[in-house]
């Protein structure tokens, strides 16, 4: 009897210690230091605990509260009660288009997927998918967007948006489509025309980000991987984790960059015309791995997924490995920190003023795979000579309250050339507009190319 209880005690003890190992609370490195950001982040050892560390957002209403912005700036909600706003586009006349919807719906594959699906759904909105584009208009320029129309509906989880001359391109979760557009239009003339189908089998990462080249000849579409780290098998990853370059005229495509796990937002750099992306990296290697990143996207480059991350750091969960691919993997430009879930990127304009004149804004949806949450804010990455220079600066915060509740989650960010930052919030279904208080009316934006970012 004594021996048996010993056995049981030993079994229980081993179980408990095994659980404890995976407890992120016992990990002193939970909070990312400054070394987590920038061109050369310090990458900790991989952790393969029993359960991934988790902290799911606990949604709450804003009530009278608002996000926090830096001194000298004001934030206002210019639209509420949307159908899950993701990305926005500022049109030449100042109107704002909002893409609304929820895509995906990959079938659960393992017992894990059932449980994780229920847990993660708690941290997102329960509103019905809008599947439409809403147009917001500020008729008198007072910062109040009093007119609101449905520009187009019956779309399939629209996400990326781009305007090229008189063509409005929309990246649905299964196809790139276009509408004809003329300035001042509040409703599309009719249903869209399909430019090309996009990979949509399973659609684990369903968001299709979009940007148009400076000359408008090409459209770039970001296509996320079909799994965290190939757990649905490699055949499911055909045409995934890459950025397509699509000929706007013919709809023909070629892979522009590959191994880029989930490029959730794209933008063209003014002046250089270079393509930039924010990318979400893999989960379940510990709270401080793997950094999500901001990078200029090089033609033909391979960014490592699934075999390796941040250059040549091999991920042993992927078997068989491919040493040749690993050797060819290039390092991204700038780490945003692990699990921040960057979903929006936009280049600033001088009209944003002062320290926000040169750089990019990044919308960070916020983590789940971390005991101490990261992200849940909009940051500004300052640039110098066309490249990131310096640590990220908080711009819009307060999406997570000190009470541990989450009021909003930023997704797409867009810069209004007149000097305003537009932030889509897909938890409270709100569009926020951040403006400088001492904006001079003469601070007119320099002439902008016809193209626009998602």
């Amino acid at each position: 009897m004594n021996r048996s209880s010993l056995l049981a005690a030993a079994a229980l003890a081993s179980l408990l210690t095994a659980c404890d190992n995976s407890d992120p609370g016992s990990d002193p490195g939970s909070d990312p230091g400054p070394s987590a950001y920038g061109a050369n982040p310090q990458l900790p050892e991989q952790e393969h605990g029993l359960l991934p560390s988790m902290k799911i957002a606990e949604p709450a209403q804003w009530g009278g509260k608002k996000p926090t912005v830096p001194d000298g700036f004001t934030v206002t909600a210019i639209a509420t009660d949307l159908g899950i706003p993701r990305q926005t586009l500022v049109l030449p006349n100042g109107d704002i288009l909002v893409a609304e919807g929820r895509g995906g719906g990959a079938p659960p594959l393992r017992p894990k997927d059932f449980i994780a699906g229920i847990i993660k759904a708690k941290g997102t909105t329960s509103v019905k998918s809008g599947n439409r584009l809403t147009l917001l208009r500020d008729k008198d320029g007072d910062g109040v967007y009093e007119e609101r129309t449905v520009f187009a509906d019956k779309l399939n989880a629209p996400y990326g948006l781009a305007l090229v001359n008189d063509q409005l391109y929309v990246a649905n979760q299964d196809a790139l489509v276009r509408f004809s557009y003329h300035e001042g239009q509040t409703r599309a003339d009719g249903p869209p025309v399909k430019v090309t189908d996009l990979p949509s089998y399973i659609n684990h990462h369903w968001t299709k980000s979009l940007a148009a080249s400076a000359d408008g000849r090409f459209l770039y579409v970001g296509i996320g991987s079909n799994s965290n780290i190939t757990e649905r098998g490699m055949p499911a990853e055909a045409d995934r984790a890459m950025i397509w370059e699509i000929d706007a005229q013919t709809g023909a495509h070629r892979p522009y960059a590959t191994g880029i796990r989930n490029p959730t937002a794209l933008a063209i750099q003014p002046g250089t015309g270079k393509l930039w992306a924010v990318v979400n990296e893999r989960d379940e290697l510990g709270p401080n791995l793997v950094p999500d990143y901001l990078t200029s996207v090089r033609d033909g480059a391979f960014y490592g997924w699934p075999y390796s991350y941040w250059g040549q750091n091999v991920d042993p969960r992927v078997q068989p490995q491919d040493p040749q691919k690993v050797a060819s993997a290039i390092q991204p430009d700038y780490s945003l920190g692990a699990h921040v879930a960057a979903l929006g990127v936009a280049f600033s304009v001088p009209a944003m003023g002062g320290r926000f004149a040169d750089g990019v804004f990044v919308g960070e949806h916020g983590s789940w795979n971390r005991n101490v949450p990261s992200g849940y804010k909009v940051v500004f990455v300052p640039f110098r000579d066309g490249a990131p220079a310096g640590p990220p600066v908080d711009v819009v915060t307060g999406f997570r309250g000190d009470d541990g509740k989450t009021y909003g989650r930023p997704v797409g960010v867009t810069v209004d050339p007149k000097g305003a930052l537009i932030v889509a919030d897909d938890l409270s279904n709100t569009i926020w507009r951040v403006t400088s208080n001492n904006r001079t009316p003469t601070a007119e934006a320099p002439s902008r190319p016809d193209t626009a970012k998602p």
Partner: protein
Amino acid sequence: MHAVLLAATIPLFLGGLLSDIAYYSNYDVQWNNFAAWLIAGGMVFTGLALLSSLIDLFRARGRRKQALFTVVLLLVTFALGLVNSFVHVRDAYGTMPDGLILSAVVTVAAILATWVGFSSLRTGVTP
């Protein structure tokens, strides 16, 4: 009833072990999915058998020792099976080799538990 629950654990955990062996050797991720489900099924029956063996323990008159041993073995199977289930939550080859080793250990534990359990059942019906 207890016998049915006990008997179900072996093929399920054994199936999980065989699936793990298959994934370990051929990298076909579908085997990983099979293993996760088979182990989950094995856990359901281990849990029910554990409850049933606890009831037997309190009702047993003569063979208390054997009944207790069954409970302990099932508890060990359940604890190791739970760890194994968590290991099988990992993505892709992250389950290996821990999952394979644990599957082998859990299968052996389930066989022992069933063996002892069956002999205690047999002696239980003849007072």
